[in-house]
């Protein structure tokens, strides 16, 4: 994943996690805020009521005072139910009010007495003013001043003033905290939205880039595949070009075909005419594909070179030379390859000399109408450093109307629908049946068409020679 996307997602997730944690400890409880505001309002109202009741001199007994005390107590209970830490200071203030009121009727009675005295003194002062009695006025002024002082300095008055002041401070402090909390919440929401928008933008950018990259890579891949298939096609052309175009041998009719399992196969055949006779070579490199095709090409070159450079070379000698070339080159390729190869030489007298371990040589004998199987022997090329060039060659004759079949295992190991291999017996039957066809080409065509519906996993090469 793109580094920017990772960082964007990390920021978004961190913000989300932070928000969730914050939410857990400080839930955005709007109901709580309203309840707290109501409670504050009720508290202040209760204080005002107390002050009003006191100032109206109606709170003269503890009996009248009791409902107010209960109202404030219930206020304390409701305050304790308020959520969060924000209102803790407010909750602490309620008991101080109760404490102040806790002086109960004694303090209220004293306060009431002060007020009664104040009113009485005030009435006396009014009388003194009406009478224009200067001494009395002075006396009542002093008295009123003293009473006023007593009223305002009474414990209840001071407690109510203090509580009012502390309520005002607590109310303001809590409002500030609520505002701070709201700001934090807004900041968190904004940062989350920004992180999400950034992530979405980066994802879109990355997606767009990836589409471009995919298109680019697809084009590169297409080009590479095209080059590869071009090279494979070239290798196939080279391999095919190395095969004889229209093979012929003196005194016989010959037809040959090769169908690689992949674009480049490991099968090989060649027909080379020399002044002393004609060579028919067939071979099969283990595996198939480009490396098998390369070994096949090396073999073709080694065979053609050895035949042209050495007069009267025998099949066993030829294979020994080819083996020494192949084993060195296979080693250089770093491949574990070997090659089966049979070299057949038809001399000018019509005798066939052969050597090399490959598939059995099948010969349809016209006079007996039976297929003769000649096993080959020796060692596969590329397995051991040296082959014995003095190994004697095998010899057979091909009579008039006889058919010689050389092939690779692609045809004998072709499978029917039920998985059964054609094997040598099946191929022998096909060879026998093919004899009814007029030419070697037609007979070969019959054989290859007979197996075209079978499962063939390997290169397929067939050479048919009619004597």
């Amino acid at each position: 994943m793109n580094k920017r996307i990772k960082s964007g997602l990390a920021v978004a997730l961190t913000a989300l996690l932070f928000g969730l944690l914050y939410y857990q400890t400080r839930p955005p409880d709007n109901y709580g805020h309203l309840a707290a505001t109501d409670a504050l309002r009720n508290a202040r109202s209760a204080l005002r009521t107390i002050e009003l009741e006191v100032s109206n001199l109606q709170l003269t007994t503890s009996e009248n005072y009791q409902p107010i005390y209960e109202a404030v107590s219930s206020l304390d209970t409701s305050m304790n139910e308020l959520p969060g830490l924000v209102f803790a200071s407010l909750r602490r203030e309620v008991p101080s009010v109760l404490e102040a009121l806790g002086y109960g009727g004694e303090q209220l009675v004293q306060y009431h007495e002060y007020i009664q005295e104040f009113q009485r003194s005030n009435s006396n002062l009014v009388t003194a003013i009406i009478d224009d009695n200067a001494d009395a006025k002075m006396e009542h002024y002093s008295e009123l001043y003293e009473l006023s002082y007593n009223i305002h300095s009474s414990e209840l008055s001071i407690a109510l003033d203090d509580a009012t002041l502390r309520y005002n401070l607590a109310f303001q402090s809590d409002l500030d905290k609520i505002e701070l909390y709201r700001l934090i919440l807004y900041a968190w929401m904004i940062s989350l939205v920004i992180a999400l928008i950034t992530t979405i933008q980066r994802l879109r950018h990355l997606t767009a880039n990836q589409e471009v990259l995919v298109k680019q890579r697809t084009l590169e891949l297409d080009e590479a595949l095209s080059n590869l298939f071009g090279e494979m096609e070239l290798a196939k052309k080279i391999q095919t070009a190395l095969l004889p175009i229209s093979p012929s041998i003196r005194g016989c009719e010959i037809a040959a075909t090769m169908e690689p399992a992949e674009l480049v196969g490991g099968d090989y055949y060649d027909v080379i005419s020399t002044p002393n006779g004609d060579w028919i070579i067939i071979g099969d490199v283990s595996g198939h594909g480009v490396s098998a095709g390369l070994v096949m090409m090396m073999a073709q070159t080694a065979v053609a070179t050895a035949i042209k450079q050495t007069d009267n070379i025998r099949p066993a000698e030829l294979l020994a030379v080819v083996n020494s070339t192949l084993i060195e080159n296979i080693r250089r390729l770093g491949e574990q390859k070997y090659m089966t190869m049979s070299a057949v030489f038809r001399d000018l007298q019509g005798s066939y000399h052969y050597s090399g371990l490959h598939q059995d040589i099948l010969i349809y004998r016209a006079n007996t109408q039976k297929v003769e199987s000649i096993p080959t022997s020796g060692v596969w090329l590329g397995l051991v450093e040296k082959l014995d060039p003095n190994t004697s060659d095998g010899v057979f004759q091909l009579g008039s109307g006889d058919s010689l079949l050389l092939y690779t295992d692609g045809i004998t190991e072709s499978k029917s629908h039920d998985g059964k291999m054609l094997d040598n017996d099946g191929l022998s039957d096909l060879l026998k049946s093919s004899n009814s066809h007029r030419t070697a080409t037609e007979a070969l065509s019959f054989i290859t068409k007979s197996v075209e519906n079978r499962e063939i996993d390997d290169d397929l090469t067939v050479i048919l020679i009619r004597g």
Partner: protein
Amino acid sequence: MNLVSEELTATVTTLNGKVSIVFEGKSDRQDPRKIISPWSEKLVPSLTGQHVDVDFRELNYLNSSSFMPIFKLLSDAREVAEEVHVHYDGSVNWQRLSFASLETISKAWPNLHLTSH
């Protein structure tokens, strides 16, 4: 130390001082070295000084690509073992052709013996 793959198995047993390796199934993969070679590289040291029987008669099919690692197994085994005896079914065409090469080579390897059943 058996070889167990999807289609090819080789069961290794030791009885009366003789190591028996029996191949079964088939091997028609394009690159069988990846399966056979790692197993044979581990197996060969344990064959040192042993009498070894390698039996291919129960093997249904071995493609040309599979023969090279098998050949290397037999070649390496006969270098460390006292004696290596290979059994194959000469009536099966691919077995006969595959081991015919070894028949010739074994003439130069005195402790490698092949028996066609």
